[in-house]
C-alpha cells in the first residue's frame, strides 16, 4: 500500500494543476459522487430501451455481441457487465483488478504520470472504474472486444482508468466507445489509458466518441511498444461535444516497433477540439505514422502531431488534412523532431475547402451538387487502416455514414 500512498500524495499535489494545453475545466461544476448501478446480465443489455441501445451502438457497442469477443460496459461510475468469450483474453473492471490481482500493480500508473494535471489527479483521488483488458502470451483475439463507458446522469463526472496489455506474441483488437444517454446534456469524462504492447504483440484500438453538446472530455493516454510490436490507435468523433483535449503519447522502446494513429473528426458549431498524437521513436527500425482528417462545420479544431526520432534508421510520417465546410477554425500544428543523423521524417498538412473542380467532375458524371459534395466528404474521411479487422472497419464506416446526415 506504500505505493498507493505515493500516488495519493502526488495526486493531491496536482489537484489544482491546469492542463498543459486546452481550455481549463472547473471540476467543481460537475458531480463526482458515486451513483449506484446494478450489475447487468446479457438479457438486461438486450432489454435496454431502444434509444439507449442506439447510443451504445453508435459508440461501437452491440448488445447482441455479434462478432464480438467480449464486452465491458460501465454505466456511470461502475462496471455493470464484463466478460470474455475468448480463451486467453481477459476482461475485468479495474476496481476488481486492483482488489484481487497483484499483477495490475506492474501497470497501474506505470506509463501515465498521476501528477500530470488535475485530471490525472482526479482519476487517482476519485477513481470510479474502468477496464482492464489483457491477452495472454501467444493468444490472438479473433473478434474484437467491445468496451463502452456510458454516462447517464446529467451533470455527472466520470473518472476512469483503463489498462490494456498484450503479452508477448499476442494480438488484441478493441473497440472502445464513449457515449451519453440521450437525456444527458452536461458532463465531464476523465479517462486514463495505459497500453502495454509487449514483444511481437499487436494491439489495434479503435475509439469512437459519441458525446453530447455540453460534455467536457479529458483523456490522458500513454502507450509503450516493445520490440517488434505494433500499436494501431484509431479515433473517431463525429458528434458534438463542448470541449475535448487529448494528446495520446506512444513510446516505441524496442527494435522494429511500429505505431500508427488515425483520427477522423467532424466538428460541429460550438465544439472545441484540441487533438494530437505524439510518437517517440527510440530504437532502430521504428516506424510511425499519424494521419488526421478533420472537418469543421463551425467548430474550433486544433490538430496537433508530434514525431520525435531519437536514433538513426527510423521512419515517421505525419499527415494532417482539414476541410472547412461551413465556417469554424482548423489549426494544424505538425511537429517533427529529429535527434540523430539518418532519421527520415516528413509531414504533409493542408487545410482548405472542397475543390470546385472535384464537384464539377462528379456532376459531369450525373451527380447533383449535393451528392457530389457528400461523395467527396465521405472520400476525405475514408482512410485505409492496414491491419484493422473488418468488423472495426465496418464500425468506422458506419460512424462516417451516420455523420453524413449531420454534415450536409
Amino acid at each position, binding site marked *: 500500500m506504500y505505493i498507493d500512498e505515493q500516488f495519493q500524495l502526488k495526486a493531491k499535489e496536482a489537484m489544482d494543476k491546469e492542463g498543459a494545453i486546452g481550455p481549463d475545466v472547473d471540476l467543481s461544476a460537475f458531480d463526482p459522487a458515486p451513483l449506484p448501478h446494478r450489475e447487468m446480465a446479457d438479457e438486461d443489455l438486450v432489454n435496454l430501451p431502444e434509444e439507449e441501445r442506439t447510443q451504445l451502438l453508435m459508440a461501437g457497442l452491440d448488445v447482441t455481441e455479434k462478432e464480438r469477443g467480449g464486452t465491458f460496459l460501465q454505466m456511470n461510475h461502475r462496471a455493470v457487465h464484463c466478460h470474455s468469450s475468448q480463451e486467453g483474453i481477459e476482461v475485468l473492471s479495474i476496481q476488481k483488478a486492483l482488489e484481487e490481482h497483484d499483477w495490475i500493480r506492474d501497470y497501474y500508473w506505470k506509463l501515465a504520470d498521476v501528477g500530470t494535471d488535475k485530471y490525472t489527479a482526479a482519476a487517482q483521488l476519485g477513481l470510479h472504474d474502468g477496464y482492464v483488458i489483457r491477452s495472454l502470451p501467444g493468444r490472438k483475439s479473433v473478434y474484437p472486444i467491445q468496451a463502452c463507458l456510458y454516462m447517464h446522469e446529467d451533470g455527472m463526472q466520470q473518472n476512469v482508468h483503463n489498462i490494456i496489455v498484450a503479452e508477448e506474441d499476442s494480438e488484441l483488437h478493441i473497440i472502445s466507445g464513449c457515449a451519453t444517454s440521450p437525456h444527458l446534456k452536461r458532463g465531464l469524462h476523465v479517462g486514463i489509458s495505459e497500453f502495454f504492447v509487449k514483444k511481437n504483440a499487436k494491439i489495434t484500438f479503435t475509439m469512437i466518441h459519441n458525446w453530447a453538446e455540453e460534455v467536457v472530455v479529458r483523456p490522458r493516454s500513454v502507450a509503450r511498444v516493445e520490440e517488434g510490436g505494433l500499436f494501431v490507435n484509431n479515433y473517431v468523433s463525429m458528434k458534438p461535444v463542448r470541449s475535448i483535449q487529448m494528446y495520446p503519447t506512444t513510446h516505441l522502446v524496442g527494435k522494429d516497433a511500429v505505431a500508427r494513429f488515425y483520427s477522423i473528426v467532424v466538428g460541429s458549431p460550438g465544439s472545441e477540439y484540441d487533438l494530437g498524437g505524439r510518437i517517440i521513436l527510440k530504437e532502430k527500425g521504428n516506424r510511425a505514422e499519424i494521419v488526421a482528417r478533420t472537418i469543421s462545420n463551425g467548430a474550433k479544431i486544433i490538430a496537433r502531431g508530434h514525431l520525435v526520432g531519437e536514433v538513426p534508421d527510423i521512419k515517421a510520417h505525419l499527415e494532417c488534412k482539414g476541410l472547412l465546410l461551413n465556417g469554424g477554425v482548423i489549426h494544424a500544428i505538425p511537429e517533427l523532431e529529429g535527434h540523430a543523423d539518418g532519421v527520415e521524417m516528413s509531414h504533409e498538412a493542408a487545410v482548405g475547402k472542397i*475543390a470546385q*473542380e*472535384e464537384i*464539377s*467532375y*462528379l*456532376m*459531369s*458524371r*450525373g*451527380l*447533383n*451538387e449535393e451528392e*457530389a459534395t457528400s*461523395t*467527396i466528404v*465521405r*472520400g*476525405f*474521411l*475514408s*482512410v485505409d487502416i492496414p491491419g484493422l479487422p473488418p468488423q472495426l472497419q465496418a464500425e468506422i464506416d458506419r460512424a462516417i455514414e451516420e455523420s453524413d446526415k449531420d454534415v450536409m
Partner: protein
Amino acid sequence: MLKIEDLQVRLGEKEILTHIDLEIGPGETHILFGPNGSGKTSLLMTIMGYSQYEVVSGKIFFKGKDITHAPIDERARMGIGMSYQRPPTINGLKTRQMVNLCAGGEIDGETLAKRVNFEEFLDRDVNAGFSGGEIKRSELLQLMAQKADLMLFDEPESGVDMENISLVGNTIAELLEKHPQPSRDRSKMQAKANRTKMGLIITHTGYILDYLPADKGQVLYNGKLSCVSNPRDILNCVGDSGYKECVRCISMNSFS
C-alpha cells in the same frame, strides 16, 4: 443532335472562343484539331457546362433543348459525357465506386474494366497517381458506365502507350457504335443509319482515325472554327505546312 450557334465564350477577362458554329447530327463523329492554346479544351468544357467558361453570346442546343445555361449535372443526365485530359483526383473514392456512380447504380465493374485492361485499378482512388495513359483508360471506363449519347473526348490517345492505343481506339469506336454488328434482319448500311451516338474528339496525332471513321474534321484556330473538311486531309495539310498555312489554304479551298 448538338447544335452550337455563334457561340462566344470568355474565361476570366480573356475571350477564348469567338463565333463558334457547330452541328453534330445523330450518329456523327467529328474530329477537332488545333494548335496548343487554341481553345479546344475550352470548347469541350463549355459544352459540358463548366460555369467559369462564360457564354457571352450565342446558344447551345442539345436534343432540341436550349442548354446554354443548364448546370453540368443536368447536361450529364441529358446524355452528355466527357473524357477529360486532366481530371482531378478524388481521394478516398475508389474507381469501383466511381463506376457505379457513373452508371447510376451497382454494375459489374469488373467485366467493364476488363475491356480497358483496368481491373487492377478498381480499388484505387479515382485518378490518384494514375499515369497519363491510365487516366485515359479510367475516363473511358467511366464513359462506358455512363452510357452518354454525346461523348466529348479530350486528347484520348495522348500519353497512351503503343500496347494500349488500339485498346483505346477500339473502345472509343465501340462507344460511338462504329462497329455495328450486321445481323440477319439488319444490313451494315442499316445499322449505320440507326447509329445515334455522337462524338467530338480532340486529337493532335490523328492515331484515333486508324480505329474509327469520322464524318468531319474541324480546325480551331485563334478561338474560331476555321475550316471543315475530311479529317485525313486536315491532318496531312497540318503535317505538311502547319496550322497557319493549313487554315488559310483550306478556307480558301472551301470558298472556291
